[in-house]
């Protein structure tokens, strides 16, 4: 089988072989009975007691890249990986951990690049050794069925390949510890925005305690810049099971665990909408507990805050729908600011129309979706904890109109 050496490994191998002299005969070294190392051995088994002397085997070799399939696959995989990892530009649609927009995500991305380089080198070295040994030391008919030299080991080599990995571990650990400390123990500057995040099955509650805002599923935070940092510090709580707040381009994930408050922070340096979702399996609809973080310019953020701080719009045309809302069980779960409805089990609806999606991102916030959601939540999110209220069509339309006034 001819070999076409079209890849770097093959080229390197060819170079190595040519250095050894491609046509030399097999040479073996052995201990003779006086325990001296001599060239040439009896045709039966060759033996080397492990005394650290390296065993030299030079053989005529023909390379057949039987492992070529695996190589090809590897290149394909890494090529497609590299291609797929090309980060989306700041279009806001990406959730690529390697396209960070905030300091914690950036520190992680930089550390990760370092770790990847080191592990990549380790991989290449060890893979090269493995590949070489498979190709070079394959049994061939020309061997005549002899057993190779029975080498038991070598303390020097063992020490070498123990010490070097230990050193690598130390270097990696030190680099990592710095980043751990920088992210986790970062002090909260006085200008920071505080948000309390409460995880529910299957939606996110956001409270801005100092601003008096309660909203759900879509987080608005101000953009920050490195000179005048206005980071956002999140306090993570849970009302039921474990959840995890993950917006990859803004920060690493942190879990929301009941009875175990957590803290995380981010300081996004570009505007836009950043996507994420719950990462800790929390029940049936874990998959549709999506996150939408809108990073706004300072003025836009202030405008948003002011709009959220207002109580609910009182639109007289929706009075019928509002009555249905308040007379059915809706207000047991939902709150609408400035009205008697103050349920906390479900999302706050005061400014429902200011959100782009409903049901924690499961559907766009359109008239039809809203209607379908209220009529039968399981149609959009089967397993959601909102019951179908079995409203009549008229009542349903009324409630939807009422919802649509809550801008």
């Amino acid at each position, binding site marked *: 089988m001819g070999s076409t050496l079209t890849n770097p490994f093959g080229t390197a191998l060819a170079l190595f072989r040519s250095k050894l002299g491609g046509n030399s005969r097999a040479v073996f070294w052995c201990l003779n009975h006086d325990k001296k190392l001599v060239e040439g051995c009896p045709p*039966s088994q060759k033996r080397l007691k492990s005394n650290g002397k390296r065993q030299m085997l030079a053989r005529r070799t023909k390379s057949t890249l039987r492992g070529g399939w695996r190589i090809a696959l590897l290149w394909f995989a890494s090529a497609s*990986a590299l291609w797929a990892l090309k980060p989306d530009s700041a279009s806001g649609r990406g959730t690529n951990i390697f396209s960070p927009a905030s300091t914690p995500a950036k*520190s992680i991305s930089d550390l990760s690049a370092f770790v990847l380089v080191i592990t990549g080198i380790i*991989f290449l070295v060890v893979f090269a050794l493995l590949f070489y040994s498979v190709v070079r030391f394959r*049994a061939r008919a020309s061997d005549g069925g002899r057993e190779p030299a029975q080498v038991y080991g070598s303390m020097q080599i063992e020490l070498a390949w123990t010490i070097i990995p230990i050193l690598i571990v130390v270097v990696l650990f030190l680099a990592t510890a710095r980043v751990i*400390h920088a992210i986790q123990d970062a002090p909260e500057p006085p200008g920071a925005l505080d948000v309390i995040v409460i995880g529910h099955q299957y939606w996110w509650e956001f409270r801005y305690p100092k601003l008096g805002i309660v909203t759900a599923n879509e987080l608005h935070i101000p953009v920050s810049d490195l000179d005048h940092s206005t980071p956002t510090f999140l306090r993570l709580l849970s009302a039921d099971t474990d959840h995890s707040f993950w917006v990859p381009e803004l920060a690493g994930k942190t879990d929301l665990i009941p009875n*175990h408050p957590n803290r995380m922070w981010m300081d996004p340096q570009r505007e836009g909408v950043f996507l994420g979702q719950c*990462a800790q399996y929390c029940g049936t609809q*874990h998959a549709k507990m999506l996150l939408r973080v809108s990073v706004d310019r300072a003025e836009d953020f202030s405008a948003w805050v002011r709009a959220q701080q207002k109580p609910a719009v009182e639109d007289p045309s929706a009075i019928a729908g509002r009555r249905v809302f308040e007379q059915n069980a809706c207000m047991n779960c939902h709150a609408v600011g400035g009205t008697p409805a103050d349920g906390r089990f479900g999302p706050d609806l005061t400014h429902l129309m200011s959100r782009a999606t409903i049901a924690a991102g499961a559907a766009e916030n359109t008239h039809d979706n809203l209607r379908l959601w209220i009529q039968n939540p399981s149609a959009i999110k089967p*397993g959601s904890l909102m019951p179908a209220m079995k409203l009549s069509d008229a009542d349903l339309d009324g409630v939807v109109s009422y919802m649509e006034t809550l801008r």
Partner: protein
Amino acid sequence: MSSNVITASVGQTEARPWVDELHQWLTTVDHKRLGILYILSALLFLMIGGVEALIIRIQLMHSHNNFVSPEVFNRMFTMHGTTMIFFVAMPVLFGFANYLVPLMIGARDMAFPRLNAFSFWLSFLGGLLLYFSFLGGSGLYGAGNAPDVGWWSYAPLGARAFSPGHSSDYWTLALLVSGFGSIGTAINIIATILCLRCPGMKINRMPLLVWMNLVMAGMVLLAITPLSAAQIMLLIDRYLGGHFFDTQAGGSAVLWMHFFWIFGHPEVYVLIIPCFAFMSEIIPVFSRKPIFGYPVMVAATVCIGFVSMSVWAHHMFTIGMNSYANSFFTLTTMAVGVPTGIKIFNWIGTMWGGRIQLKTPMLFSIGFLFQFLIAGLTGIMMAASPFDWQLSLSYFVVAHFHYVIVGGILFALFAAFYYWYPKMTGRMLSERLGKWHFWLFLIGFHLTFDVMHIPGILGMPRRIYTYEPGRGWDTLNFIISIGAFIQALAILVFVANLVISYFKGARAGNDPWDAWTLEWSISSPPPAYNFATVPAVASRRPLWDLKHPEDPDSRYE
């Protein structure tokens, strides 16, 4: 009494009626038969767990798919994980240990044959209990059906409040029962190895497979029991009104995580160390050289056993431990990579300078080395806790652990199957089918699990029954699913090989591979009593000494 009636030997009288044969198998205490029973039950659960995986992959083929409902999907990934870890991987490894350890140390049977049988049946019963949950009854939101809490059943999701009905209880009980079986087997293995070695087999002359099963058994004693304790606590919470993990009463969900992972991490080492054992037996034979650095291999294994008990919270990097705890577990996790790496180097060192025969067991071993290297390196990546804050709970980590379990453990198991099937049945597996199996599985494996790292990097979390389009995950998931089907095909080829070769395979003699450990000195399959006379050994490779009397190992050790 022969141990296998179907390969009839000359002079055999008429075959026993099948009822008697079945009775023999059901009441056996012979370690060889129990080993085979473990392996067969593991293969059965492998098929079932594999179907669950295919269901998962079909559902995830494209975004917003509705092949199955979210409830069914959640049950699928829970059952797939639980089945594969507890009812495939552990039993098959115990099965091989059961079969091989007494043979390799020259013993008649395990130290406690009846405990051995009891442990097997407990383990099998656990599997049946788990699957009985599908029939377990009806209830609200599918409660009373198969468990859907993930194979870790994190608190408080596993509590009565969030998992009503009995589905979660089947999970708990199945694991509790089979856990006791595992402890029984571990006690048996340790007692056998410490007490029943043949004359001359000092502890530093045991085959590496025996050493590694010893370390594995020791770890089982210390690792499975925390899970048993946690399961008891969960049952107390669910049925006696306890508050161990009840966050409303001041209990701690994090405590469950600690207890689970104190089990969970050593558990994966319990699974991989016997696979290291297989590699340490197979690679030398097919490289025609002794294992490079036997004492270092033993030391590294023991070291892994100890250090792996200190790394568990690397599964909990995202739960909000303080920076010192995160740093500590980063360090220990990276440290455990050192002895593991040393073993890889030693295996390559064994191959180096050898005369490598690329038969099917060796093909799978080389695959193991390649894949375990990659898996270890992605593990090191996630050991860096900030990197883990992004990668954890995503498809990257799913890719990583499947790389270890499928690319590492399953490949090593396939190698072990091809290597020891002749000993167990007296027939060789077909090399042709073996090569088909290998290449098909390799392609499918890499198509699935190489690509699977990418959605993780692109932000796809795990345990989601569907995902949003436009995140760049669609095509990748499609490719992953195709790979899964290719692997399924390869498994079918494997099973076909097992069955066809049983009836039509070439007869294997005592020693088809020209190997060096004691099991190859007796017939294939071995007689019920194993050794007609108790063997005495003078070195680590007793059969090498016999075959090369002018140059025995004993001179050099």
